[in-house]
């Protein structure tokens, strides 16, 4: 929650700064941001690589649960792909890039902004915030009408942090480890898949 507030304030603060000081767009922000993005991806890589428990945790789980992130990733990408014709002016690869944020709105939207521009970046930000909020609000209904694992899959990368409390509450505490593992793996796929879909045409 604290993280979400920080992120929203940085964005809103930036928005007001840009609105009142329009000269800011004359600065070469894009090339500055590109270097910051390089630093970001390097640090993200380090944090995944240095997490020793990442590999050991993954090894101890039943191989069946290992499929859960694949279900999430495949379902999301198929859905985003099929709904692309309903959008206005979004290409298939762009729609897939937005979908591949899996709720990790901060990282996915900054990567997309850098490669594809601010317009798609804002779409990614909104889409992935909505994804998180949907799980926070509708988790009980997702369990009731679909399956205990549905909130985990819908939560995407957020199943290990911001949506973990509602998953624990409505899917059951036995799903905590699975939700965390799922989140870690989907989370790690975000920079990879978003970058990939941004660069294909």
């Amino acid at each position, binding site marked *: 929650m604290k993280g979400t507030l920080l992120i929203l304030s940085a964005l809103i603060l930036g928005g007001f700064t840009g609105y009142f000081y329009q000269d800011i767009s004359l600065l070469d922000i894009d090339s500055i941001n590109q270097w*910051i993005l390089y630093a970001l*991806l390097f640090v993200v890589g380090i944090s995944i690589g240095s997490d020793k428990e990442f590999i050991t945790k993954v090894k101890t789980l039943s191989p069946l649960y290992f499929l859960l992130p694949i279900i999430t990733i495949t379902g999301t990408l198929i859905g985003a792909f099929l709904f692309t014709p309903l959008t206005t002016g979004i290409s298939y690869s762009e729609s897939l890039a937005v979908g591949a944020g899996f709720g990790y709105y901060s990282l996915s939207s900054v990567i997309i902004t850098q490669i594809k521009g601010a317009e798609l970046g804002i779409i990614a930000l909104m889409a992935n915030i909505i994804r998180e909020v949907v799980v926070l609000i509708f988790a009980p209904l997702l369990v009731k009408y679909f399956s205990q694992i549905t909130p985990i899959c819908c939560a995407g990368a957020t199943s290990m942090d911001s949506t973990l409390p509602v998953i624990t509450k409505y899917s059951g505490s036995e799903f905590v480890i699975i939700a965390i593992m799922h989140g870690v793996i989907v989370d790690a796929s975000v920079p990879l898949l978003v970058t990939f879909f941004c660069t294909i045409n």
Partner: protein
Amino acid sequence: MPVLILILFIGFLVGRVFSDNSIIRFSGKLITPIVLILLFFMGALTGANETLLADFATLGANAMIIVVGSLIGTIFLSVIFGRVLKRKLLKNQSR
């Protein structure tokens, strides 16, 4: 832009090799501040861009369509997988 994926991979390798190094472990804490800086600039560019502000409703509609599609796909596959999982786990228990 394979450069980005390459950088990510190099970071991963550095993280794996030097996982005991305290500086390396600390670097994970840099993710949030860096993301905040990028988001600030992202907001600034949006705020300064009048066409983008004018298109806000269209952008929102596109975001909504993509997220609804993503969630329907995810729900559909998770229901199927949930059933398979239940059957397999029950079978294992009865053994």
